[in-house]
């Protein structure tokens, strides 16, 4: 006897946690789209943002001031990364840039924990995590809140890309760096802006994930959850990141509940990768990725 109600509950839970994956994935997409870098340090930025915010609040700084200060720090970080890491590596292969972001993630993780300590911090955003019932299906209030935040953020970015001059510059750089340079766009400024935007996404995602998991080192491992989402959705598509996140979230939870017991459980760690790979074997450019002959 198949329990539909339970199935839907698992599905909704999966979709909502998928939104959280999308949130992390969007940070990657922003940077990949405009600079062709797979930014492995996104997880470290997330940890850094959440840890900074929590530590400020714990030291008695009011909530909004703390968020503002963290935002300023993330902006400074974005500008610094462009200055110190990206600018000297212009024209290097994308793989070299990727490895540089691996190094960067070590630096940021180390610095965050050196600065604020390695203990686990609780983070309370003031949203009670009491599940409520819709038609017999239990839905987590917190997950719903996170989904709403993610939705707002995505809409904001979509509008920003579509209607502002900076957004237009972002799209131009994403389209063709040389052409963008030729018409007088300042690449370095665009990159700094993009890394700043990614920092803002990291702050939001860090707060939401931090409230869920506690703010600690393992927060930076959230990247590993976002990577299959990116593979599935395509590295350069915001829409792909969202749909991919939802799919991965749902599949992961369903697999864990229905397939997991057959294999001894704990398959969450790799189920997403297997799904993403199986999909890629059929469609190498992902769901919404640009169809190029060669993706390097």
């Amino acid at each position, binding site marked *: 006897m198949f329990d539909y109600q339970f199935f839907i509950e698992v599905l909704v839970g999966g979709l909502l946690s998928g939104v959280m994956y999308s949130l992390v994935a969007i940070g990657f997409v922003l940077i990949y789209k405009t600079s062709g870098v797979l930014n492995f340090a996104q997880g470290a930025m997330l940890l850094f943002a959440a840890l900074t915010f929590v530590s400020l609040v714990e030291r008695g700084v009011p909530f909004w001031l703390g968020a503002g200060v963290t935002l300023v720090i993330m902006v400074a970080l974005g500008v610094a990364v462009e200055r110190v890491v990206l600018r000297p590596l212009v024209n290097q292969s994308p793989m*070299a840039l990727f*490895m540089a972001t691996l*190094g960067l993630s070590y630096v940021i993780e180390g610095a965050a924990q050196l600065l604020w300590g390695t203990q686990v911090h609780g983070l309370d955003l003031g949203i009670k995590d009491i599940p409520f019932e819709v038609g017999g299906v239990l839905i987590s209030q917190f997950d719903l809140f996170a989904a709403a935040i993610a939705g707002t953020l995505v809409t904001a970015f979509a509008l920003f890309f579509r209607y502002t001059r900076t957004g237009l510059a972002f799209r131009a750089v994403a389209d063709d760096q040389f052409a963008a340079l030729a018409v007088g766009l300042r690449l370095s400024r665009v990159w700094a802006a993009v890394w700043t935007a990614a920092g803002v996404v990291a702050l939001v995602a860090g707060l939401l994930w931090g409230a869920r998991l506690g703010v600690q080192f393992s927060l930076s491992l959230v990247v590993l959850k976002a990577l299959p989402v990116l593979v599935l959705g395509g590295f350069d598509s915001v829409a792909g990141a969202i749909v991919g996140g939802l799919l991965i979230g749902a599949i992961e939870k369903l697999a864990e509940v229905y397939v997991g017991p057959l294999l001894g459980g704990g398959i969450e*760690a790799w189920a997403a990768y297997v799904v993403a790979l199986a999909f890629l074997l059929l469609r190498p450019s992902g769901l919404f990725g640009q169809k190029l002959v*060669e993706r390097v």
Partner: protein
Amino acid sequence: MTTPIRSAAVRWFTPNRFGLAVLLITAYAVIPFAGSDYLLDAVLTPFLALALAALGLNLLTGYAGQVSLGSAAYLAVGAYAAYNFNLRLPGLPFLASLVAAGFVAAAVGIVFGLPSLRLRGFYLAVSTLAAQFFVQWALTKFGWFSNNNPSGVIDAPPLAVAGLSFSGAVGRYVFSLTVVVVATLLGTRLLRSQVGRNFMALRDHEVAAKVIGVPLLRTKLLAFGVSSFLIGVAGVLWAFAYLRTVEPAGFNLDRSFQILFMIIIGGLASIRGAFLGAAFIVVFPLLLSRFGAALLGNVFDSGVLEMSQRIVIGALIIGLLIAEPCGLIALVDRVADKIRRRVFPPQSRPIHN
């Protein structure tokens, strides 16, 4: 003027070969007698195992151009395969288990290398993470691999080959050294053969390689196979010669990155670079902790130390990628070249190495 015979001998006996001979004689005839147990156990044996792993990854990433982020998985496969061969086939000599473990790792590597036929670049790099998570999960979940140890821990039996015991610190060092020397020789030969040239053609331009008749499918899978064979053998050394008690959690993503960092720091597509990078990554934390303790005293607790190591290693990676993308080995070569020119001033014929 030199006679032709002498000049041939001189030409064969290049400074590089001379250096290699000195290194090998030191490694076999001096270190086992002069080195302390601490040096052998905590520095040289892990260095040898990781250097072999770095060499394996360098074959795949440096020479064949396929980035892999899952190296630690093949280390684990090698270690657990050798353990099981040793346990379940009691008559099997240890060297046979070692080679068989390498082949098991190669088979796993080929399976996880299959996506490389469709994916490139970042997509491939991400997909190699699947090996990392799957292997770690399987080794923890299925008790069979660890002879039903509840947390997947295996204890390696004392090392013995053909009745000779290699269980002391010196024995384990000499055993590792021999395995690494043999594996390195084989790897070097392979790279100088048609296969090695195919690897490089694949790395430099896949389409061009295909046009000139390099069988892409076979070459890619071979690269994954050979690379994970070497990493698997390194895993056997890691488990049997160095740690002797290993658990799946020890083969985590950090270990994979550690091996990747070795080849970036040492130098991509360089055999000596793999060794140099491994030496650096093994020795550097020890030095940092010594200096930290000496300079700052007790301020430097273990947590602070670990974090500063992370920062310094990360910064170093970025710095090297900016300043010397070819790795430390390029730096060493330049310095060595200068010294060589000073000591043996170049004659009419330039010295090739």
